[in-house]
């Protein structure tokens, strides 16, 4: 009989644990009124991959592989602090933003992997962006052509300045036109993301 009571007691603990675990998601009730917009702050920008500045046109014969228009690749890491001021966990569904060197938008990146942020806590998220001089050249010419002309700059001048200056962050890098989408229960909020580094 004692053994039986011990088994029942043990199983009861398990039962309670299972029920509580299942009910955890129902404990807090997010509403439009009590939802406080999380904040997304740029902590820093890193250059985790760098090969200097270079460009080969398709007229140059490569040692191996096929010729093409190739520009130096440069990796940028954007580390964000994402703070959840709510009393319940919040899901960040996606974070998307454009990257501008000075006033020229060169890239748009997104982190689409959902992330839970516990109640009252701050998570960090790294978003990696690959910048390459060829794509940036095209982007610069097609969206910044008139602007560069007005400044009396050629796209090549701009690329060289940025690719050689990136290790020292000698020019401002802007995060702009950014949005983070947060969800809690049935509440969905888009939060604007903008920052400049350094």
């Amino acid at each position, binding site marked *: 009989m004692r053994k039986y009571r011990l088994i029942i007691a043990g199983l009861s603990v398990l039962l309670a644990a299972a029920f509580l675990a299942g009910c955890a998601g129902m404990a807090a009730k997010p509403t439009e009124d009590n939802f406080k917009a999380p904040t997304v702050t740029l902590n820093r920008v890193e250059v985790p991959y760098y090969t200097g500045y270079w460009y080969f046109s398709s007229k140059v014969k490569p040692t191996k592989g096929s010729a093409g228009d190739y520009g130096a690749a440069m990796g940028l890491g954007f580390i964000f602090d994402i703070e959840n001021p709510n009393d319940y966990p919040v899901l960040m569904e996606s974070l998307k933003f454009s990257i501008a060197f000075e006033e020229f938008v060169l890239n748009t990146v997104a982190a689409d992997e959902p992330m839970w942020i516990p109640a009252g806590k701050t998570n960090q998220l790294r978003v990696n962006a690959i910048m390459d001089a060829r794509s940036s050249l095209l982007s610069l010419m097609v969206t910044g052509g008139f602007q560069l002309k007005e400044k009396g700059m050629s796209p090549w001048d701009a690329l060289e300045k940025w690719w050689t200056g990136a290790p020292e962050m000698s020019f401002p890098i802007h995060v702009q036109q950014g*949005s983070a989408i947060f969800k809690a229960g049935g509440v969905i909020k888009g939060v*604007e993301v903008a920052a400049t580094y350094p």
Partner: protein
Amino acid sequence: MSIQSRGTKAFAFLFAVALIFGLSSWAGAAQINIGALNDMTGATSDVGKDYALGIAEAFHYINDTGGINGKQIKLYQFDYGYRIPEALTKYKLFKRLKCVAIQGWGTGDTEALAPTVAKDQIPYVSASYSGHLTNPEKTPYNLFISADYSTQSRGLITAWYDNKWPKKQDFGKRKPRIAMCYMFASPFSSASIKAAKDQAEMLGFEIGDDQDVSLFAIDTKSQILALKEFKPDVVLHTNTVMSVAATLRDAYSLGLGADHIIKNWGFDENLPKLAGEAAEGAMGCAPWAFFGEDVPMMDKVVEYAKKYNPGVPLEKRTIHTVQAWANVLGMAEALKRADAAGDLSGPSILKNGFETMRDFTIGLGVAPITFTSEDHRALSIARVYEYTQGEFKLLDTVDLQKRWPEKYANEWIGW
């Protein structure tokens, strides 16, 4: 039955109840995977970024309003920077992710992928509206919710011929003269040139030498000087907006004196911003309403732009958002019909979905859509606007099917 046995059974029952009620929130809902290939950084990013934002916002709308008969869509959206090798790489990823359909982008990669999507039987809805993609005998899995470039070009030339040519001083005295500006090496820019010349010849135009204008051009004086020799009455532009704006600016400053007719990608809210007063009187084809126009569904387009991309000011949003919505709403309708038929495979999305649409209306100012197993031209109508006094005003609507039924049905499909 012993106490122990009864207790164990009772526990098992309660444990099951706890699991069902407690853990049911962990159960995943049915999901449909869709791929999207966009250019947010490359040679067409001046128009591609806004389109990409519209794609994501429209899928949010579909999910928020019940999904595909209750199934949620998981969108895998990637920027490929207009690099065709990367488009092929991303396409392979979409297959591994078991995407049942794809929202694609440019003419180069869409035409390059057309044989592959046909073999794989994956419906591919593109923002390339190349006429080459409209014949199901050749490209059975390519679709889009727009007038194709050839229909646009034919409609533009016809609208100019009907509305502007009779008002010219030389009307009735000589043939009208037309020339075309586009990037020769770009499959996108050159896609409708053959059809445009065919239409111009049919209407009795004299056709001048083509001018090679790069998509990156900001100085087109040499091309304008060459055009001045020919003295065109009208110039057709088939590039994207920045180089079209550059050409209009140079034509204005050098006194070319011609009218301008422009394919959809060169005719958006940014054209007057970039071209200034040189944009006055420019005509363009817009199969959809401009962003914010008072048409059905536009309230949702604006609401979702605000909701999901609050960092992008509304004044920066353009007609390209609207055309993305059109492609998404068309695809969602096809998915719903295929799902209702109990089969969400590629062939079913095509046959039970798209190819069952007859005069289907999605709103957004888009004319009713029809797809058949013999014809993937969704629209035979070119809506031609004129930019004048700071506004885009509808000038004419040219229905090629009504006007030239024989040629439209038998001669003009697929190019």
